[in-house]
């Protein structure tokens, strides 16, 4: 885009549009395993209806989604699967970790449970609770939205300073391979 039009009205408007579209329509990939997944189902069902936030398109294909929503306990057996799915997602991608288990292992300080998914993938928003209420989860999604906007602004400011865009992939720079 930039190459074609340079820093012109077209690109900036397009970026605004893209920005707006991205932040108002997260397509989550629900990586649901346990009790939290049941509560996630509650979130998409009629009572809470997460589609009001543009996230109704639940995609079970990592290629088509931009938010990985990890709901439920991830244990050591599941870890490689989660990592693989994260790797398959296209940039830009964000991760919401829902529930105590995904965030930190919760009260399972045990031989088979990962002590937080941030051991293998970077997390953007942690939503505590066991399980979080659907409102809590929606709150988390809204927080992510704000964070995306914030990161965008930061990104814009940096590229205005003439830094190469590559280095700052925003929200999830860093520990992807940790």
């Amino acid at each position, binding site marked *: 885009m930039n190459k074609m039009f340079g820093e012109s009205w077209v690109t900036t408007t397009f970026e605004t549009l893209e920005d707006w579209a991205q932040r108002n329509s997260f397509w989550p990939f629900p*990586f649901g395993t346990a009790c939290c997944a049941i509560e996630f189902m509650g979130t998409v069902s009629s009572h809470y209806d997460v589609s009001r936030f543009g996230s109704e398109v639940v995609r079970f294909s990592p290629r088509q989604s931009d938010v990985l929503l990890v709901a439920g306990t991830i*244990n*050591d057996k*599941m870890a490689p699967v989660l990592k693989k799915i994260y790797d398959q997602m296209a940039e830009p991608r964000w991760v919401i970790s829902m529930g105590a288990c995904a965030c930190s292992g919760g009260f399972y300080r045990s031989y*088979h449970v990962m002590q937080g998914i941030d051991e293998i993938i970077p997390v953007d928003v942690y939503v505590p609770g066991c399980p979080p209420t659907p409102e809590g989860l929606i709150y988390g999604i809204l927080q992510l939205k704000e964070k995306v906007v914030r990161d965008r602004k930061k990104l814009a400011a940096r590229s205005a300073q003439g830094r190469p865009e590559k280095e700052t992939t925003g929200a999830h720079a860093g520990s992807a391979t940790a």
Partner: protein
Amino acid sequence: MPTLAPPPPETRVGYDLDAVRAKFPAGSITTQEGAPWPTWIVRREILVDLARELRDNPATRLDLFVDLFGVDYPDRAERFEVVYNLYSLPFHARLFLKVAVREDDAVVPSLVKIWKGVDWFERELYDMFGLHVEGHPHLRRILCHEGFQGHPLRKDYDAARRWILTEDKIYKPHFDLPDGEDDLFERMTINIGPSHPAMHGTFRLMAVLDGETIIASDIEIGYLHRCFEKMAETHNWQQVIPYTDRLNYCSAFINNVGYCKTVEKMLGVEAPPKAVWARTILSEFSRIMDHCVCNGTTLVDAGALTNFWYMFQIREEIYGLLESVCGARLTVSACRIGGLIQNLPPDFEARCRTLLTMIPPFIKDVEDLVDKNRIWLDRSVGIASITGAEAVNWGWTGPCLRASGVAYDVRKAYPYDLYDTVEWEVPVLYGGDVYDRYRIRMLEIRQSLSIIRQLLDRGMPEGPHIVDDPHVALPSKDACYNQMEAMIYHFKLIMDGIQVPAGEAYTMVEGANGELGFYAISDGTGKPYRLHCRPPCFPIFSTFPQLINGGSLSDSIVSLGGLNVIAGELER
């Protein structure tokens, strides 16, 4: 049309353990005195023959294999003890067998040839205790991953010691395909899951397809193994309750009740009438909720999305009730040992009544939508069917068993709480297929509603919500403030936990999936020495490859839903 069959006979006429005992050499079987249930300590050498005899002898007919688990006693010469839990449907009798083995000779014979359902239990025994099961066709880990070293439920295993699973160690299935047909090019092996919505996010199905037909399949579980049993050993008795919530998280309350009843039995206390009354009502509401979730998701798997909304609406309303009782929607922790978490809210009865009027229309809507719907009928009738005799051999219990024509329900067989004081029936269907499993849940919802209605009509019993025993229940805060004694009890209960006397207990309740039992062993310290949960869907799910082999791939998805496999309970 459904037949409402009578409960299993409460009589035991003709049941005679001695008839079996006489066939084996003296000294190879000893009766354990003081055990909570009839228990035999058996020499390992005769186990297989004894088991077969117990199953087939017309005087015992212990045909339902309920449970198997190990216990580790590092101080004993015979370090490991394996406990078998058998039930006789015709005679309505239960027998426990115990086999002790030494550490340097940690081998037990496999009973797979006698009860098919024992297969996964024996793999779990190997996984958790490292006992070799001789004669098992494919003994390998089941819950822990392949990179795991050691056997976690041994007492000398550190509860927090983890192992990393690397890609190269991930399980690759091996199928024994029928030879002779040289059409290997037509066959395709596919892998579904674990992170696949049709596998409910936690199971991995590997199937060999010939066109659309599954000719061989294998499943891998353990993706949600959260070490419930080890965690129970590291927490005190009261603290285990939140962990039980997370077993069958669709009906967490029933787990609470089951666990608390076990501990109450060991302590010799009884919950006060109000708690029992509320436990019965809330258990039934939880059952309704669980059945709704199960049927809702099954129908979604078959493409009928609308029902999902209706079913989940019911669930939301029941959540509201539970939340008003205990403050959480899903993971309720609403029971305490000896009673309930808090007194019932003032509007409890009114809320229950509202729910009673609210649920039937939703149920009716769903039934109108799908009961006679040709598409649903075509996709479910005759799919994944199993006969009653087979299901019993596989160790099934609960709605799935009752859909195959066997009327076993713990609430009737061993009535607990208030189930013997209300009038209700056990629905039984004979199709044994996905459709009848769906229907039976709908029928059970109606029975549950009727139970609740009768209990509500009886009115809430007066009195406290928890036993008034300072060794079990925390004193009220008022007492705490005003009486030094109460304060001391409070302090002791929190610091040391409830002191459960040494001993064993097994109690079961009818979970939403079948017999949900807890076997607890206490050594008199403040923590459980061993706590085993008998997960109803464990044997049910182990049947899955057999159910889907020969069917089409799309049918396998619908079959899974109908079994209502809850990963938290399956893998604990």
